């Protein structure tokens, strides 16, 4: 046992280093919080930033050693590294926003920092998962931490209710996920992705078990990315959780869901994805349309962005559907090398980055408006005249919302452009038309906030925010949104290379 394990882990410590840093960092932050009595309020946030930046630095500077680690449980590669950067970057931003939020609220949550690190660890494991067990553990490590982050604001009953709702429905969906994995294990005789591939290529795969199992797993993953009809939790949880957590959930958690969803549907190509392909297509259309239509009627900006995040999940699912469409090829190898599969897959990765940047910028601003004590900048009518009180915050929010609406030259436009052109290239013209109509509808509700900020006179009780660190951070994200919107090519090509390197 020892002879087997110790050398095995020892020689693999290199590729696993970012994961180990985040895990050890989480424990360290927790211990420091418990035992160091002379701690000032900001110290934990510096320590957390140090851990996250350290992990990013290791990720950049190390010579990549790609391949399976831990006996094939995890697979390190360009795809996993891409998502690690995304998650760690969102973690850095969330730490900055949260620390600003604590100052304004007069409410300090030291447990936030370790929980953030642990949920990021779960996401990183998820993106590198190469075994159903790692998928399950990654999803649960991420989710259990996020339940507490969303629901753990002491004495705030809205946050507690949001957390409870998220936990109960999340547990419900985990049960489906797990049952699906159990059936897939029954199908393949092993839990590794390699076992699944081997069984799929076998002589007479048991189609009943496979279809049922993969359907249940898709339900569980659909919940994490807020696919209709598994979206019911999204508006309530996004509204009830503190804004810095909402921003984290809307970006990192959703990206993690898509990280595994993309790999999972690629893995099951062609046998089962086709069985679920019509269903997935129908749900994609409903997800986009319902998200945008309900967002029109919201008066709370966090609820509005929750419904808009459902709509954006619909756009991303459009990419997933295109990636596995019959036109893209009928085997998993062909899929990744084919032009349609490659352009759809890289469009998903590009859109995830775009969506993360613009959503984080928006939530960074929302987080610092309002009076604190659980009240964030929520009511849209109270944004009236924000431009006159805080032009930088108003401009940042404007860039973020314009980008979410998909207006050039923002990165949101380029993301939608790549996605829809992949859809057209696959010959799914009706889907592309529905997507474009949907993004036209969405312009209305994003513009409403902008009209409030610039054209309405100030009323009583309007918002003003002065937490400069958060404003500057959000502003930098907004600049990145514009920059990537003007110069998307290099990044798009990188996304394509990363997508083509997915292996199992």
């Amino acid at each position, binding site marked *: 046992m020892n002879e087997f394990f110790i050398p095995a882990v020892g020689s693999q410590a290199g590729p696993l280093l970012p994961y180990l840093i985040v895990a050890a960092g989480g424990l360290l932050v927790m211990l420091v919080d418990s035992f160091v009595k002379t701690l000032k309020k900001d110290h934990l946030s510096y320590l957390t930033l140090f851990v996250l930046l350290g992990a990013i630095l290791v990720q950049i500077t190390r010579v990549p050693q790609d391949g399976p680690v831990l006996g094939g449980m995890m697979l390190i590669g360009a795809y996993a590294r891409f998502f690690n950067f995304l998650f760690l970057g969102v973690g850095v931003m969330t730490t900055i926003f949260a620390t600003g939020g604590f100052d304004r609220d007069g409410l300090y949550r030291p447990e936030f920092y370790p929980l953030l690190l642990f949920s990021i660890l779960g996401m990183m494991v998820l993106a590198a998962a190469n075994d*159903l*067990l790692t998928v*399950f553990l990654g999803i649960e490590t991420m989710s259990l931490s996020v339940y507490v982050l969303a629901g753990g604001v002491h004495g705030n009953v*809205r946050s*507690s209710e949001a957390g*409870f709702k998220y936990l*109960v429905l999340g547990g419900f969906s985990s049960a489906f996920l797990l049952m699906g994995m159990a059936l897939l294990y029954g199908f393949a*005789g092993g839990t590794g992705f390699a076992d699944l591939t081997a069984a799929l290529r076998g002589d007479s795969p048991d189609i009943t078990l496979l279809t049922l199992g993969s359907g249940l797993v898709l339900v569980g993953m659909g919940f994490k990315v807020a696919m209709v009809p598994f979206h019911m939790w999204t508006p309530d949880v996004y509204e009830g959780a503190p804004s810095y957590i909402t921003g984290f959930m809307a970006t990192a958690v959703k990206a993690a869901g898509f990280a595994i969803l993309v790999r999972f549907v690629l893995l099951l190509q062609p046998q089962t994805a086709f069985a679920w392909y019509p269903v997935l297509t129908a749900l994609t259309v409903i997800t986009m349309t319902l998200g945008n239509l309900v967002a029109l009627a919201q008066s709370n900006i966090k609820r509005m962005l929750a419904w808009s995040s459902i709509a954006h999940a619909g756009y991303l699912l459009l990419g997933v559907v295109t990636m596995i469409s019959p036109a893209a090829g009928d085997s998993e190898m062909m899929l990744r090398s084919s032009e349609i599969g490659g352009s759809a897959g890289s469009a998903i990765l590009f859109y995830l980055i775009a969506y993360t940047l613009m959503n984080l910028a928006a939530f960074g601003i929302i987080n610092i408006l309002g009076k604190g004590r659980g009240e964030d900048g929520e009511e849209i009518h109270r944004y009236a005249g924000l431009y006159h009180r805080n032009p930088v915050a108003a401009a940042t929010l404007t860039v973020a919302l314009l980008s979410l609406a998909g207006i050039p030259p923002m990165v949101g436009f380029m993301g939608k452009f790549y996605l829809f052109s992949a859809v057209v290239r696959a010959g799914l013209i009706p889907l592309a038309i529905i997507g474009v109509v949907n993004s036209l509808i969405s312009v209305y509700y994003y513009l409403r906030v902008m009209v409030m900020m610039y054209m309405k006179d100030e009323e009583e009780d309007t918002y003003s925010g002065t937490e400069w660190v958060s404003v500057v951070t959000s502003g930098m994200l907004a600049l990145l949104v514009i920059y990537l919107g003007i110069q998307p090519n290099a990044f798009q090509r990188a996304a394509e290379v990363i997508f083509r390197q997915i292996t199992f």
Partner: protein
Amino acid sequence: MEITLSHYLLLAGAVFTTGMVGFVIRRNAIVMLMCVELMLSSTNIVFAAFSRFHGNADGHVFVLMNFAVAAAEAAIGLAILVEIFRRRRTVNVDDFKTLME
């Protein structure tokens, strides 16, 4: 009568369905949490049965991990519920409506 794989799967299906129906029709938050636990546990039967059927240990490993995850989930759920109960003096989910549209 010989007990075969399909008997175990039927049993697991029955337990899973019980949990699912209970989750949907009951309004008591603690009972809903218990129903989720029931659903999670029913998958353990499937894993154990297939593990025996295939003659490898992958399923057993999954069961052990699932115990830990289910316990953590219950602990977090009850902790949040206690926090809500202190404020509201009820565990009926129909009364949790601060966040309704």
